[in-house]
Structures are given as C-alpha cells and as structure tokens.
C-alpha cells in the first residue's frame, strides 16, 4: 500500500526579519504514504523544524511566511484552509510532538485537565467520557497508574513520562499523521529507545504515518522507511532508508555519516567532522549551498544551484558532481 497521504511540493518558507529575508526552507518536495515513517535529518538550522511547522502552518505570526509551494494532505489543500478548518486539521488530522516534553505541557494545569480539554475540543463528549478516554489513552502508551498521573502536574512527572503523556495526547483523535520534532533529543538514552518503540507501535496499531525530525542518523536507521537529508533549507538527498544506508550519494550525507561514532571502531580514532559552518540563510540560493564546505566542489558548484535529480530509481540527489558522468566516489578526495 503506497497511497500518498502528504505531498509537499517546492515548499518555500521565508522569515522576514529586520536583518533581511532568511530562506529557512527554500524549495523542499517530498511525499509521505499512509502508515509510512519518514525521517528528515540535518544539522541545526537546516530547516527541518520549519518544514514541519509549515505543514501545520504554525509559523511565528508576522515574520514567518510560506511564500510558495503546495501542501496536499489526503486530498486537502492545506494552504487554502481557513482558520476554523486549520484548527480541526491540526488537532484531528495531524498531531505534533515537540522536542522538550517538559515544556510542551502547560505547567499550570493538571495533566488530566489538559487531556480532557483537548478531547472536548475534538469530540462532542461530556466531561466524564472525556476523562475515561484520557485514561484509556494513557494506558495505551504504557502508563499503568493512569488515574493518578492525570491528577498530577507536569512537573511531577519525569521527562519520559511527560513524553508518553504527549504521545497519548497525540493519538487521542486517531490522527492520520504524527509529526515528531526531535521527540527524543531531550531524553536520556534508555528512555529514548522506549519512546521510539512506542511511536513504532503506534504506527503498527493505528497505521499512522510519522514524520520524524531528528539529527540522529541512528534513530533514522531504527525507525524510518524513507529519509530526506536537508542542508541550509534545501533537500540534498531523498530516498529510502536502506538506499541511504547502503548507497549514500551526496557529499554532505557522506560527511554526516563519517561524523557518526561507530561501535567497534578504535577508540583512539578521531571522529571526522565537516569543515566550516553552514551558510547565512539570508545569502543562500545563488549556488550549491554546500559548495564552500564540499571537498569535491568545482566551478559549477559555486555558480549554479543544483537541481534535485533522480539519479537512481527512487533516489533523488541535488549535486552537480554526482550527476556528471562517472559520478563521485565516496572518500575520493583526501579531506585533510
């Protein structure tokens, strides 16, 4: 079953600040099928989070704006939704899990109150049924003493417990898609694994598609079906997870992979890094954004923006050099 659920085409989200126009997302296209888990990876500031916020149109009012592109969700044009439709779209069709569970719940209301409030905005039920639904949802995510937890304030729960509550809230309306924006970054490693397992289980049980935003490639290997690598607001590589693992093609992806510590490698071995820093997002869009850090960059990279091309079936790469005859070989240039 590979029916498209979310289709994003040439999405551009810019931020208008006093210092200039920052092209946070500059032409991103991808597709998520029903029940699929897609990952977006990239370093901080690459536009992963802005992409996800753009999908539910939750951008800072006044400064952030979707300037072009289209977002189609299950036959609905998201960019054409009015305020009221947008509210129901956000709660019911797509739900979002944020990075820091401790700050994603309001500190001044009890967990149960926040859950029932959400249930009652989504469904026409009385307070008692809402309470019961909330309790059931908490049990589903593995919280055993649900009653007692509902009577707690968020600060009385641990980070992992909070994230479970948030996941429970995100499945209340049986959404078609969950956007998880770095759901495990703020948690410790053992809890991370539990939360990821839980997300995977939600996918198995409810056929929910998940858009997983992370900067951790390990999480991608564990969770995702397809993956998009972003750099400076652009897609640099987009393919299936196994393709990216076995045959990564973009030099930036190579850099990311090389900078991952490997189990069993010599402990003395120095971890490789990508030289330089990402470009200023106000100045991008005139050449390949990665050209100033790319060891393979040639003249064309510094003057023409590379297009995202399907180099192999289902494997999209935005690189001039990789598109040339013969292509590039990973590790073909001495990086030191």
């Amino acid at each position, binding site marked *: 079953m590979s029916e498209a659920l979310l289709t994003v085409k040439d999405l551009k989200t810019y931020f208008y600040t006093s210092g200039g126009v920052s092209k946070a997302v500059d032409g991103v296209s991808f597709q998520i099928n029903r029940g699929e888990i897609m990952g977006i990876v990239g370093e901080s500031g690459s536009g992963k989070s802005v992409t996800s916020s753009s999908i*539910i149109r*939750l951008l800072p009012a*006044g400064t952030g704006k979707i300037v072009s592109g289209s977002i189609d969700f299950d036959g609905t044009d998201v960019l054409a939704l009015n305020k009221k439709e*947008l*509210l*129901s*779209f*956000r*709660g*019911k069709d797509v*739900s*979002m899990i*944020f990075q*820091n569970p401790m*700050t*994603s*719940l*309001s*500190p*001044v*209301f009890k967990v149960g109150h926040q859950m029932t*409030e*959400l249930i009652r*905005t*989504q469904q026409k039920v009385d307070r008692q049924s809402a309470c019961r639904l909330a309790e059931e949802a908490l049990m589903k995510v593995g919280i055993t003493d649900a009653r007692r937890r509902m009577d707690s*304030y968020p*600060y009385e729960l641990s980070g992992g417990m909070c994230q479970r509550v*948030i996941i429970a*809230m*995100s499945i209340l309306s049986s959404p078609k898609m969950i956007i998880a924006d770095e759901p495990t970054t703020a948690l410790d490693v053992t809890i991370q694994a539990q939360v990821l397992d839980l997300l995977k289980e939600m996918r198995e049980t409810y056929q929910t598609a998940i858009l997983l935003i992370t900067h951790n490639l390990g999480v991608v290997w564990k969770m995702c079906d397809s993956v998009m690598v972003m750099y400076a607001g652009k897609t640099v590589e987009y393919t299936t997870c196994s393709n990216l693992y076995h045959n990564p093609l973009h030099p930036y992806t190579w850099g990311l992979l090389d900078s991952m510590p490997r189990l069993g490698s010599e402990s003395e071995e120095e971890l490789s890094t990508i030289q330089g820093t990402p470009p200023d997002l106000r100045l991008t869009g005139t050449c390949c954004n990665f050209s100033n850090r790319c060891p393979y960059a040639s003249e064309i990279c510094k003057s023409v923006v590379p297009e995202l091309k399907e180099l192999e079936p289902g494997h999209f790469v935005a690189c001039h050099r990789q598109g040339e005859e013969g292509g590039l070989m990973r590790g073909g240039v001495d990086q030191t």
Partner: protein
Amino acid sequence: MFKTILIRCLQILPSLFVVVTLTFILTRMIPGDPARAVLGPQASVQDVQKMRETMGLDQPLVSQYKDYMIQIAKGDFGVSYSYNQPVLGLIAKRIPNTLLLAFPSILIALIAGLLIGVTSAVRQGTLVDYLFMILALVGVSMPIFWLGLMLVLVFSVHLGWLPVLGMGSMSSGIGDVIRHMVLPCFCLATIPTATFSRITRSSILESIHGDSIRALRARGIRESVVIWKYALKSALPPVITVLGLQLAGCFAGAILTETIFAWPGMGTLIVGAIDNRDYALIQGAVLVIALAFVIINMLVDVVYMIINPNVSYEGGF
C-alpha cells in the same frame, strides 16, 4: 502547604515588632510638642508641662517605649489626643470608608489592566498596542492631584454631573454614595490600571512565546482558550504580586485622592494625626497598615501556590 502558611504566620511577629519600634522612634523625631498641639499656642508653660506629665511624655524615652510595648501587647492602642477617643475605634470607623473607595478602584483597575495588557500582547507591534501602551505611560506619569482637580473641574463644575466632594450619605440612598464614588474611584484606579496593563502585557508576551503555548496551538486548541486560559494563567504570578502590594496599600488610604475629594478615610486621618503630633494615633494607624501588608503578602504567597503548585517546592521559605 499548611506548614508553609504556619511558618509565614510566625514570621509576621518580628516584622511587626520592627514596625512598632521604628514608628515609635520616628514619631518622637517629628519636631513639635504634642502637649502644645493639644492645648494650642495660647496655653501657658505650666499648663503645657502639666499636660506633658498626664500624657506621660516627661518620662525617659526608654520607659515610654517599654510602656507602649506592654500596652500594644495587651491589644490596647491607646487614646488619640486630638480626638480624645480610642485609637482603634477611630481607625475602625475610617477603614471601611477607605476600602469602599479602594476595593472598587483596584477591581476596575485589575479588570481593565488585564484586558488592555492581554490585547496589547496579542497584537504586539500594532497600532492598538502602541496606543494602549502610550495611554498606560500617560496613566502612570500623570500627577494624581492634577487629574483629580481636572476631573472635578470638568465633571462637577462645568458639566454639573457629579458632586464635587464628600462621600454622600447612605440616608439619601446608595445611589448618592455611588455618585460620590465615581470621580475618586476613577482617580484612584488610573495608576494601578496602567501598572497592571504593562505588567500583564510583558508577562503574557513571555508566556505566549513559550513551548507549551506553541504545543497547544499545534493541537488545534482555539486561540481564545490558548490566550485567556493557558497563557493568562501562567502569566498571572507577577500580576498577583503587584495586586497584593496595591491591595495592602489600600489600607493606608489614598492621601492625595482623599484630600482632594474630602473623603473621610485613613489617608486624611493619618495626615491629620501627623499635623497634630498625635503619637498614639500615628503609631496605631501605621501598625494596622503594616499588619494589612504582611497578611496580604502572605495571602499572595498562598495564591501563588494555588496557581502554580511548583512554587511551593522551589520557593524554599
């Protein structure tokens, strides 16, 4: 929580002791002689001396202080020289008048301030926001005596809509008292309204840029609920701090407003007492006001704990 409240209650005693001592010393430092103030400038030196002896002012300060402390400990606030009445009775008569003016003013200021503050914050950077904040600035900076006089000039003298001064009397109906309250209440509410507006605005701005508000929006909660329920509740603590101070301040009466409108409240009572060197009355009034301050501050702390229970664990009293 109850333990915290108990500890706070015990902390009241030393504060009050300090207040009583300081007021005792300060009243003795005001130049002028209470006996002379009571008898008038025509009285002979002998009469004044006699009066001083009856008032106990011929005793050394230390023994006066000791007597006063014992008296206070017994709950006796003494007798006012100038009114020749028990101090406590005088204060008890004036406080309701003062509160009649103060509570409605603070209530109006609180409601108006919250409305203005939240609206400004939600529309940050728009014309509405600038307009409200300029008004708030004017409100804080305007001298109250000038505002009071202008209000009287316009609404009482020129338009003749409202009475010039006094508090009317219940015998001519509650409407009469309310008509007398309008101008002084407006006057008294101006500064608190402006203060509440500014504090609410900055506190709401801080809370609506937080993650939890973003998460609420992402979950499709209506914007009005997000702002008026979630953002407002987490933004309340600083507003409540100011509210507590303002409420406590109420008990001291509004000296300027009460004087302009000849309102028989605590403010005019204290000013009169200072003029007459009425030691017992000054000390008694200050003690009552201080008591109001510490009790209300304690209540503010309790309200904090109710709004944000996290406080009681982090506060570390």
